[in-house]
């Protein structure tokens, strides 16, 4: 085995270790990220698991990407989500019944919360695709804006600007005084 080959294997081994280490921290975040897109918790959990398997199979291509590994995982998650939605034939939104309402208050409170959640979901739908992606990666993937910028191929400043504009838009649509 020549040195180059040995180095390649050693790098791949390091990536495998790195990927294995990211599982605990990022599985939940990826599942939430997918959930926001597809609105189905069970499917989101399965897709999150699939992301890690797919990453393992594609570790060789990771070296060419030049993004942090967690960012790369979200790229894979995005692609799998798009595939899933394509198979489903339509973009689903989160059905209000499947949103976990905290506590089991009286019916009036529950109804009020339902309205509030519906308003958030409606507001999210009004964002542009890129804005929604930034919000999803920042709020649910909990990636930094620098990591998001490497995924979207934009500058950090552009991501921060897009983030602010998206939140202002959400605020404007949700528009509730608290």
């Amino acid at each position: 085995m020549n040195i180059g080959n040995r180095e390649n294997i050693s790098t791949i081994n390091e990536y495998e270790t790195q990927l294995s280490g990211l599982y605990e921290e990022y599985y939940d975040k990826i599942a939430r990220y997918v959930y926001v897109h597809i609105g189905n918790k069970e499917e989101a959990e399965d897709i999150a698991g699939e992301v890690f398997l797919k990453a393992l199979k594609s570790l060789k291509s990771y070296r060419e990407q030049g993004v942090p590994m967690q960012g790369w995982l979200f790229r894979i998650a995005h692609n799998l989500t798009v595939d899933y939605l394509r198979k489903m034939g339509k973009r689903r939104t989160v059905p209000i019944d499947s949103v976990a309402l905290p506590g089991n208050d009286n019916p009036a409170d529950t109804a009020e919360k339902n309205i509030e959640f519906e308003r958030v979901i409606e507001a999210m739908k009004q964002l542009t695709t890129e804005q929604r992606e930034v919000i999803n990666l920042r709020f649910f993937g909990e990636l930094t804006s620098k990591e998001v910028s490497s995924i979207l191929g934009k500058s950090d400043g552009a991501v921060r600007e897009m983030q602010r504009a998206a939140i202002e838009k959400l605020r404007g649509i949700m528009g509730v005084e608290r």
Partner: protein
Amino acid sequence: MMAEDFDRILDECIDRINRGDNLVDCLSDYPAYSEKLKPLLQSMHDVQKTYTFTPSADTKRATRQKFHAALGKRRQMTPVLSFFKVISRPAVWATVAVLVLAIVGTLVIRPLLNPPTLIPSPEGNFAFLISDEPNDIGDFESLNVTISRVELQAAGSGKRLEFTPEIKTVDLTQLQGEQSQEIWRGNVPAGQYSHVYIYVSEVKGRLELTGQTVDVKLPSGKLHISMPFEVTADTVTSFTFDITVVAKGNTGEYNLKPQIGESGAQQEQKPLE
């Protein structure tokens, strides 16, 4: 410029909230922006609250097992794939042609020379862990040890079995005292064992004080412990191999050594399937 500042502050507050900080703390750090920040961060909270959910522990466990099984399988395959990559080159074919007789000879005795390789399994009866007995580890900011394979030698017959760790690189600074890290789990034939060998391919140490990398020696490339232990079929045997780093006087060099007193096996009941 002002807008850029605000974008940056908003971004920082989002990071802080993601890390578990609360909204009020962030607002109080930026009183000049507080009025503008508050509704935006409140919206962030509302959005997160709406979509949040905790994935089921059962599904997470099942997918984790699937992932580790795939990882183990892949690590078994890697040397084989590399082998095919190498032999596909013309220069290697020429060498092969010249050495063919020798190879045939080697193939006959190879099974006798190379220990059988054990397959990892998350439900296996044997777990192998690494730990660090603190000696001079305090000198290090990080001390990464890469283990290429581990061999177990059966008592009596002297027959050896080997496995490739699922986690190859461990940072000993994170494994001090009671801390340990499982690097492999799988099925090992029940029986008495007497020796454990760890083959180390790389040691990278970074000093706490200077941040410089330092030479950590392991002349033979392996660590060896002679210790009798038993592996049974119906329990999980966890073997902890303790490694310690010791300074070589005032030379600025360090040695890696096995720590037999802190190493050993213990048994526990296998979890129900």
